[in-house]
């Protein structure tokens, strides 16, 4: 079977032409960003630079980084590079603090994102005849929308994300004859176990492919899912701050994810020192947008670990490939594809129990094969009540707030003072217990 390429002219272009295109777009991006966004202009000025100091792609390393904290400090519209009346969509993602990270898109911007998703789906062998079902936790609703738009662009039949219980999703998958499932590795794993539990053979499903985004996945897990469900898996990489779930995408060769280099410039840096690392060496992925008009990002530190290889790919695409690594370069924890900052949990607890300042620890647990967040909150004198009901309501309220703000399953345990003594050193942190179980 010949696999199609959505935009051959772009995806298979000569590397020299691509470098020229990147330079042109990078200079224009920088000129626009410094004209319209004080944050970027100040950043350059603090380094003693002018926007026109960038003479070659290599000069990019002299520009300052942009961090998640910078995005959060600019809440809500501080980093927008066009007037609000030009914005046609506004996205929120969980930030590093209480306030979300807000990004905006012009009509042209959305067109670019749609195309990137279409490139990804076509590379995964999706065709217009496919029935594409999209399942994400509410925390990844932005990606669900983009996958829907991209799949519609290539005229597949799309079942958009709907917040349904797993058995219902499974029923739809079975009855509607879903052939492509777009989701996270966690969700696909859960689905596979649910089928096993009910004794449903994979043959009852019409599923033949799955496009997975949001988490790194071990080769063993991948093979297990592919064999168990008799499907082929393709992965995609995206950021939650900008909606695109397909900044990089896997082709049929399955050796790394092609980065949309006509829209993004990637660097790999030493996570501690911020110094560049050569091709083929693992480090933190840093991304710069080349075409985004409304919400440009200059040297954004993703916190994701990856390596970049520029060796030609047999599929014909000339875009360099990312190989994502497990683990992170920052304090974020990824639960079911949602990137979570510890300050976020602290913010929610502080808000829910005003003034009480209880000690707490957050765990990421795998319970019955399902990843969830479990928060232990110490009941101090301020919180204490001799009515069980009052405490139950408190726990319920914190849990509901966590689930609504983060869009992932959560549990809350109120514990007596002293219970957390073994976790003393890790109060206020997120402890990932998944590796042990």
């Amino acid at each position, binding site marked *: 079977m010949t696999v199609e390429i959505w935009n051959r002219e772009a995806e298979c272009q000569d590397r020299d*032409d691509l470098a*020229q*295109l990147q*330079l*042109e*777009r990078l*200079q*224009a991006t920088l*000129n*626009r960003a410094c*004209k319209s966004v004080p944050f970027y202009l100040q950043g350059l000025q603090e380094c003693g630079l002018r*926007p*026109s*100091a*960038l*003479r*070659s792609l290599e000069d990019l390393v002299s520009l300052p980084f942009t961090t998640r904290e910078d995005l959060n400090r600019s809440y809500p519209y501080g980093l927008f590079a*066009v*007037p609000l*009346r*030009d914005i046609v969509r506004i996205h929120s993602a969980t930030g590093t603090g209480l306030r979300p990270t807000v990004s905006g898109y*012009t*009509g*042209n911007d959305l*067109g670019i994102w749609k195309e990137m998703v279409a490139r990804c789906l076509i590379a995964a062998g999706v065709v217009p005849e496919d029935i594409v079902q999209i399942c994400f936790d509410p925390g990844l609703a932005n990606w669900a929308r983009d996958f829907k738009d991209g799949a519609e662009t290539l005229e597949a039949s799309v079942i958009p994300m709907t917040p349904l219980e797993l058995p219902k999703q499974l029923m739809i998958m079975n009855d509607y004859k879903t052939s492509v499932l777009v989701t996270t590795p966690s969700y696909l794993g859960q689905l596979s176990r649910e089928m096993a539990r009910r004794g449903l053979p994979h043959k009852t499903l019409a599923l033949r492919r799955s496009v997975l985004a949001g988490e790194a996945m071990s080769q063993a897990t991948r093979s297990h899912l592919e064999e168990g469900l008799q499907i082929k898996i393709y992965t995609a990489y995206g950021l939650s701050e900008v909606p695109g779930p397909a900044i990089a995408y896997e082709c049929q060769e399955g050796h790394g994810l092609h980065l949309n280099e006509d829209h993004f410039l990637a660097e790999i840096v030493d996570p501690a020192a911020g110094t560049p690392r050569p091709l083929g060496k693992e480090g933190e992925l840093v991304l710069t947008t080349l*075409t985004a*008009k409304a919400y440009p990002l200059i040297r954004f530190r993703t916190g994701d670990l990856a390596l970049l290889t520029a060796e030609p790919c047999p599929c014909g695409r000339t875009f360099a490939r990312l190989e994502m690594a497990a683990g992170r370069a920052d304090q974020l924890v990824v639960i079911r594809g949602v990137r979570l900052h510890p300050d976020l949990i602290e913010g929610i607890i502080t808000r829910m129990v005003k003034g009480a300042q209880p000690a707490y620890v957050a765990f990421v647990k795998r319970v019955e094969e399902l990843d969830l967040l479990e928060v232990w909150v110490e009941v101090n004198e301020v919180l204490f009540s001799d009515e069980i009901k009052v405490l139950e309501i408190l726990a319920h309220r914190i849990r509901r707030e966590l689930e609504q703000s983060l869009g992932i399953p959560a549990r809350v345990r109120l514990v007596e003072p002293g219970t957390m003594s073994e976790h003393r050193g890790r109060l206020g942190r997120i402890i990932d217990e998944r590796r042990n179980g």
Partner: protein
Amino acid sequence: MLKVRSLQTFYGRVRALDTVSLSVRPREIVTLIGANGAGKSTILNSISGLVPSREGEILFQGKRLNGQPPEEVVRLGICQVPEGRQIFQPLTVLENLELGAYLRFRKRERREIRRDLEMVYALFPVLEERRQQISGTLSGGEQQMLAIGRALMARPALLLLDEPSMGLAPRLVLEIFRTIRHLRDQGLTILMVEQNARAALKTADRGYVLETGRVVLQGNARELLDDNDVKRAYLGRDYREFAEGRM
């Protein structure tokens, strides 16, 4: 075909171009749009060697053009149609066209020159009708045709057009842009500077938007026509007509 990288050009101490990069691929029409003084014409003049550039690189079919004299740039296959139709007014139409092939006369390409003259006459029949007329007496539109015809006589691979629609009546503007598309269909590559941003973007494949010597936006012409900044800044006066889809 043409790659310009981080070009810096000064007029005395005034910076006219500030790190400009752009490219033109074979058989493309690329347009440069922007306000007066944004540096559009300076880019063309830097490519054709009329203005020296201080830093950066201009590559044409892999050859470096920086520091080359204008006649060498013409010899390499780039010909510029200057702004304001600077034809030789006292000379006849035919003499002007023959001057366009000046470099080739020395190479004794008489037969080819004859054929190209026929090609120019086929493109602009009015020039053949008036070949013996003193060109200063031609109308504005005819002078523009003569200026383009003269450039074509050098048989360029890349044609640089500086404000081809300037000062022309609306009907003639349409005709000039139709001719430009026709030339591209014949295999010519075109880099064009235009004040009339809307007509230019409707004709071109891609475009670059310049502001005070810098490129602030680049992309395919259709996207630029849709861009709100472009609409506000350069399609301003005719915005209503534009929005209603009238030309």
